[in-house]
């Protein structure tokens, strides 16, 4: 998977959780909780969806590393050995 594929997968799962987010206008530095208003259940569902799709299990202490699309793409790329 290329870093671009990983980013795309993350954003697809994010939009599944919050269908009102428009992937075309989503900025890479938007904060999942502060800007996009995901709550703790949304974050958990997102982490579960990423686990299922990419096989990456994100520990709770690593949640700050996926708090924006940019950070999440970098973190997941590194976890997948990209």
């Amino acid at each position, binding site marked *: 998977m290329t870093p671009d594929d990983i980013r795309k997968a993350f954003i697809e799962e994010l939009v599944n959780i919050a269908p009102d987010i428009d992937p075309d206008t989503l900025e890479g530095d938007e904060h999942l*909780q502060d800007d996009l208003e995901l709550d*703790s259940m949304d974050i958990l569902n997102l982490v*579960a969806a990423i686990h299922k799709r990419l096989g990456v299990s*994100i520990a709770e202490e690593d949640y700050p590393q996926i708090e924006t699309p940019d950070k999440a793409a970098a973190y997941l790329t590194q976890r997948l050995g990209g």
Partner: protein
Amino acid sequence: MGVFRMPSLGADMEAGTLVEWLVQPGDHVNRGDVVAVVETQKGAIEIEIFEEGEVARLDASLGQKLPVGAPLALIRGAGEEAPAEAPAPAPQPEKAAAPAPAAPAAAAAPAAAPAEGVIPASPAARHEAREREIDLATLTGTGPGGAIVLADLDRARPRPAPQVADRKQMLAEMRKAIAAAMSKSKREIPHYYLFHRIDLQAATDWLNAANESRPPEERLLMGALLLKATARAAAISKAVNGHYTDGFAASKEVHAGFAVALRGGGLIAPAIRDTDKLSLDEVMAAMRDVIARARAGRLRSSEMTDGTITVSSLGENGVDAMGGIIYPPQVALVTFGTPRQEPAVVDGQVVPRTTITISLAADHRASDGRLGAKFLTEIETLLQDPEAL
């Protein structure tokens, strides 16, 4: 003959629009079956029926906006005569040759099998499928007898997100409903308020350790612990758990309404039945389920009306407490603030501890501050031993 009527789905509902029938004349219905979908100010709600019998006649048609109490259908109980216009009864099934000893009364005859080649579907789903050019044969039905219902169409081919204007209008309607219910509450209920800051360190440590070894899909949220502890405390402090209509009636069961914030605004608090008796994993699964369905607009009518107390978690928004408004006919609302690290004195030393503030809004017609205080300290005690929750 029973008349099935438009139910009241809360203090704030005056009318609803019938959008789907999931049964037709001749179908057998049991207590708790979902028989229709009604659009309300709080979204589409699946309406359950609370009697058993056969649907004799449908009295409301799709798209009709009907006041609470308007007749929707006529239900024929066991042994009642068919109304004149009902179709002839299905032929009796042939008796088994060998009489089974002490066989239970024959189960109700299944609904007549659809003609061969006809896929069972609700009329609204059939109509919608034609409009949206979806082949019913490609779908799996989840309605009664495997019939295809509107929700199955949306699952197979999600609708585009509603237009901004629709969404705005929907939120404005919901805001009106919330305002009406809260005004009624403030007018009629003599509220009193209590606030109690408690140590949440034991629960936090237990939760972190439990989640460390769990895959994401099996992890718990602190909200599940808070909900369970509140429900168990409510089972003890009976005067905060129940309904006030003509006087206060405490409820034997605890069905905690769990406040779910909807994206873009609005709030809905579906009830989780017997919350105090569920395991933490079951509470977590129930929370996940009602949140998903609240946001998709697929809650059931009983979930809108069964709540005996409401619990609201302010989550990670960073505020400590809320003087909330009780959702009538309930008599108490419990709110949890943001868990945060604070300096605390433990064994004479100042140490950082995770704390949380519990707020209680309660109805003076059912309890007073002394009982409310006991209730909050009971929640505190339960949260000190999270493993036993």
